């Protein structure tokens, strides 16, 4: 670990530096008022909330299926995971059982989203250390993933993918072909990206020992996801509380040791390989299933019927009307469901009073919770290391501010 210069407590005059709110190096709207001693950070005061959009309040005035587009805008680097997390929360509330095929399809989409999320984060660490090349290369792979989303739901960034009870339509042939191509080609591409950075002397000097956090402090700050695993704690929601049939898959949870920027980078790299392995397994499992066609659960009072049925079939018309006008009964109760998002445990705490809207919906946003530790992590570090620490923690403004 790099030794940090000691800060003397004499009559020094410190400089106040306003880092942000809009600065290209902060990758979003974050403000930190830094007290600087030369190039060293003595203290910092984060200000957040610049893009607060009152999602929790808005959700109390929207029917369940209209909350999905709000979740897109939390961690917009991996929107499909947020969408699926919300669908699963409502499904848990109404007690819907999904066919295995749908669950495996969801796993594929969520793992694709995780790869896209980690690609952005890791390549941006490269940019912040001065290596632009990797960033430009891996965006081709992210583009490929976005094309898969486009095949499935028509959107790219804010996907609104899937519906309560399954998917809006089955994956088409092109989507399957593109997924297969991605998991075949991406490992070689990732290896190429790693060649640029992993054993690069400049990159290692910049990232090893930069912004470290111990496992104990990370747990006390309720870290989750890759940032916690980089500190050496093997907590992953997919293993601890499996959802969407994750228990059927074989995969490993990579962990780091020092909790510094290099470890966070390496944990995310390895997770991408694990995600690809999960996608391959899911495709094999779907091949083997008897069921070749189902893409949604049989819950007519929540899942919109196909349009041609609405026009030609009395029952479908009734269900369509009931869903759109919010006439279907939802059980009363409170439910918490969490998924392993790109940044960690993404939780939905939903209180239902039986009405068409949530009575209260609280998002457990991993970014919001672990960004608190930023102040402690950059104390005594250089300004340039603070920038690197922030990008390696993958703080996403949308998730931070809700």
């Amino acid at each position, binding site marked *: 670990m790099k030794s940090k210069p000691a800060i003397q407590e004499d009559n020094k005059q410190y400089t106040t530096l306003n880092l942000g709110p809009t600065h290209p190096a902060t990758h979003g709207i974050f403000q930190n008022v830094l007290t600087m001693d030369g190039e060293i950070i003595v203290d910092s005061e984060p200000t957040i909330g610049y893009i607060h959009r009152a999602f929790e309040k808005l959700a109390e005035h929207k029917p369940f299926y209209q909350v999905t587009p709000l979740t897109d805008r939390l961690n917009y680097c991996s929107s499909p995971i947020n969408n699926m997390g919300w669908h699963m929360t409502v499904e848990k509330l109404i007690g819907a059982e999904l066919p295995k095929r749908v669950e495996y399809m969801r796993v594929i989409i969520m793992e694709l989203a995780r790869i896209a999320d980690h690609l952005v984060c890791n390549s941006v660490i490269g940019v912040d250390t001065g290596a632009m090349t990797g960033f430009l290369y891996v965006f081709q792979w992210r583009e490929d993933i976005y094309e898969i989303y486009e095949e499935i739901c028509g959107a790219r960034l804010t996907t609104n993918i899937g519906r309560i009870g399954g998917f809006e339509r089955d994956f088409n042939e092109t989507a399957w072909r593109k997924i297969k191509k991605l998991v075949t080609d991406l490992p070689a591409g990732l290896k190429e990206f790693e060649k640029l950075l992993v054993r690069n002397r400049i990159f290692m000097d910049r990232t090893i020992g930069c912004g470290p956090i111990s496992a104990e402090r990370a747990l*006390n700050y309720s870290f989750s996801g890759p940032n916690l695993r980089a500190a050496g704690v093997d907590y992953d929601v997919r293993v601890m509380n499996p959802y969407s049939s994750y228990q059927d898959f074989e995969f490993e949870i990579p962990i780091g040791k020092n909790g510094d920027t290099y470890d966070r980078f390496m944990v995310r790299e390895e997770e991408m390989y694990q995600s690809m392995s999960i996608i391959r397994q899911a495709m094999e499992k779907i091949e083997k299933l008897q069921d070749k066609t189902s893409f949604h659960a049989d819950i007519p009072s929540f899942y919109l019927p196909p349009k041609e049925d609405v026009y030609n079939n009395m029952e479908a018309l009734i269900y369509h009307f009931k869903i759109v006008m919010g006439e279907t009964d939802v059980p009363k109760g409170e439910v918490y469901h969490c998924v392993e998002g790109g940044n960690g445990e993404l939780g939905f705490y939903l209180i239902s009073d039986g009405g068409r809207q949530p009575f209260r919906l609280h998002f457990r946003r991993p970014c919001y*919770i672990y960004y608190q530790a930023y102040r402690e992590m950059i104390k005594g570090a250089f300004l340039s290391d603070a920038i690197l620490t922030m990008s390696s923690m993958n703080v996403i403004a949308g998730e931070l501010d809700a």
Partner: protein
Amino acid sequence: MDKPTIDQVAEAINEKFGDAILSKEQQYDFTVITIDKSILVSLFRFLYDDERFQFRYLTTACGVHTPDQPKPFTMMYQLHSLVFNLRIRFKASTTLNDLQFDSLIPIFSSANWMEREAFDFYGIRFKGHPKMTRILNVEDMDYHPMRKEYPVEDLTRYDKDDTMFGRDRSGYKKLN
């Protein structure tokens, strides 16, 4: 060490704190224990320190406003014992005149912003919090927007009226 059951946890809490537990119910996969807010910190400290349970991870905390209850303001806390993979939810309620809880920061550093969020949106104060100011909303805002009496939009608008959906105009009360 054997994994304790959630009933054993509840029993141990009962033994230690007795009548401070107001109710215990099962909500889907969670056991929800409603407690008196006076034991909050000592209870969480006990669950943190006790080797049998090791609840050392604060998953989340948030405020809830239920205007029709005698104690309308509630704080919800969710603890996770990573060693035994046990999750539990606690709730403590209070009235508008006594809108104060003890801060959990001495036990969990992560409680800091969760509590500030609850203050920002519900006006719940936390005793012992080092910086009880707004976090996501602008500083000069003079109300706590997540309380149910504040509508999401201007009340003069009729085009997004909630009465269409079986609720009154403020959106939180069911009509029938």
